[in-house]
């Protein structure tokens, strides 16, 4: 089931950018460009999560937050203001998280996923074509057959599936799978990608992106 996310942001450029990123990660999105429209949309539809800018025309983010608090929809504030007081105020109002512009798409997606997981709104099963990853059981099946993967291979395929259609740099993958302190060089990533391609028959789907890294394509 795809999750529905409302993007409340008055800057069309940023709003569209978020939309693009969320869509490629497999979310439904809707957009509102001011507080009033957003409030109407929220009261009318059901959303799994709201990305809410603070400085909005008509009704500002904090006020809007107070008005929709009772609906218990997880909210992530998006703001250009980075000072602590704003952050604290936002979180006090019951926001789940606080993202300061400019942000990285991957970070935004990671945070959204964390919150959805906390609200039990994340599938425990990730799917990609005929591959099915059961996150709670740590089991990967292809055509209902269990495939044996090492821990790092498993983490790598999870990240690729979660960020499908988006290229991930080798550095980013090392950071996410092997943690920051890994000193082995990017060669390891290439080796693991090779194994994954072979084990899961993904030669066509895991594309090497020139100068960057890898992208899982449908």
């Amino acid at each position, binding site marked *: 089931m795809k999750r529905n996310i409302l993007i409340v942001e008055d800057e069309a450029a940023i709003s569209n950018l978020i939309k693009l990123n969320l869509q490629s990660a497999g979310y439904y999105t809707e957009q509102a460009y*001011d507080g009033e429209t957003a409030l109407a949309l929220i009261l009318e539809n059901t959303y799994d999560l709201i990305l809410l800018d603070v400085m909005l025309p008509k009704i500002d983010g904090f006020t809007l937050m107070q008005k929709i608090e009772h609906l218990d929809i997880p909210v992530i504030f998006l703001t250009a*203001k980075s000072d602590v007081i704003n952050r604290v105020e936002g979180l006090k109002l019951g926001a789940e998280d606080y993202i300061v*512009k400019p942000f990285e798409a991957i970070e935004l997606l990671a945070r959204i996923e964390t919150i959805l997981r906390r609200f039990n709104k994340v599938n425990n099963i990730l799917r990609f074509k005929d591959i099915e990853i059961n996150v709670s059981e740590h089991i990967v099946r292809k055509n209902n057959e269990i495939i044996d993967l090492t821990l790092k291979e498993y983490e790598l395929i999870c990240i690729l599936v979660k960020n499908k259609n988006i290229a991930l740099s080798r550095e980013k993958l090392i950071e996410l799978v092997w943690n920051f302190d890994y000193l082995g060089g990017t060669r390891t990533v290439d080796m693991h990608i090779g194994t994954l391609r072979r084990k899961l028959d993904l030669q066509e789907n895991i594309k090497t992106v020139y100068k960057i890294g890898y992208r899982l394509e449908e």
Partner: protein
Amino acid sequence: MKIWFKLYLFSIILFSLIFWITVFVIIETFHNNTLTQQVTNSLNEHQNIYNGINMDIPAYEKLQRYSRDTLSSTQTLVSSFNVYASNYNSDNFYLELYNDKQEVIFSNTNFIDNISREDLNNLKPNTRQYIIKDIGDRSYIFISSILKFSDDNYYFSYIYDLTNIYDERSEQYNFTLKLYLCFLVVFMFLMFIISNFLTKPLSKLTQATIKITKGKYSERVSVRSGDEIGILADNFNHMADEISTKIDKLQEQNNEKQRFIENLTHELRTPLTSIIGYADYLQRSKYDEKVFYEGLEYIHKEGQRLQQLSFKLMDLLLIKKDSFEFQKYGIKDICSQSIGTLRPKILEKSIDIELIGDDFECYMEQDLMQVFFINFIENAIRASYEDSRIIISIDSNNQQVTITDYGIGMDQENIDKIFEPFYMIDKSRTRSENGAGLGLALCTKIAEFHHIKIDVVSELNKGTSIVLTFNNNQGGNQDA
């Protein structure tokens, strides 16, 4: 040492000093007078006795010459002395007689033994010598002269006890000391109160300074006296007023600066988010023509916005008075040129714009002045509804230009802030016209150079009037 204590201590010392000097002078003068009096009396007495005996001596000499049975010279003198010594009924008075070998032949003293007698040394006939000497705890005056009797020289001394006079002086000192101690107690008590009273305002001031140092800038002292301390307190209060005003001002400036930085960050972060985000997205996602060109357009547009912002910021931060030349121009020309520049926007909203009033000339930097008017007129256009009007009226008598629109207007809160950099009343509207909220901040700076006073009158939903008063005809040249 505290000032009241210093005052207290020094006044006590001064009091004691003056008291004792006065007392010393009085007692010593009195004593000296008494002493001189007594010495004169003693000299007279001595003279009397001396004369008395001397008068008797010729008679005795005659008797000696004619009678065998007469007494010796020495005996005669001794008997004579006895008569004098017993006739004077005074305890304080003594007589002595020595022969020329300095042996005592008569003395009614009971104390003179082995005492050097300077008064007897080098004594010459027909002269007398006296000396005042202390013997034990008593003082005596010794007056001596030579008696001649039958060719023999006798030394005659008259001694008078002066102890009383010295005792009297000591008694006076003793009495004065007691008097002094009584006075001192009273004086110390009064002075304690006085010095505390006099320095009380100072401790009040000190307390106030401590409180002010701790940040209670509203603290004042109430000292009502016309003296220096009163003036000091007044000045202190005045200073505190000034400080608290300055601090409020600094606080306000600080807040302004804080807002400026916050706003600047916001203005930078927003386009940067788009630029970085799209560049990143396009680089990493699968090629899609629509998304690709859309993304590039955003990057381009936001890049332009950043450029605009940086240029305006440069203008705001870098314009300096000495880099401009001021020349005389007509205000009306500048206004109509500005209107010309804005023509497309005016037509777009079909606004009727009127320029009325008599022209006046002013020293100005033409380009800056144009930026100045364009900004105000542009804001008036933004605030106006479609098909409404804007009136620019020039008043040559008062050297004023008033730009009036009949648009959305604003409340007091907004009026106070519109000249702050990055301030936007309606964020989305301004953005769509590529504004960064720097225009009026720039105007403030330009007005500063040209000594123009800006007044804003506005009412929500009724419109806004900007009154520009050109304060002097020299424009910026005044300080140049």
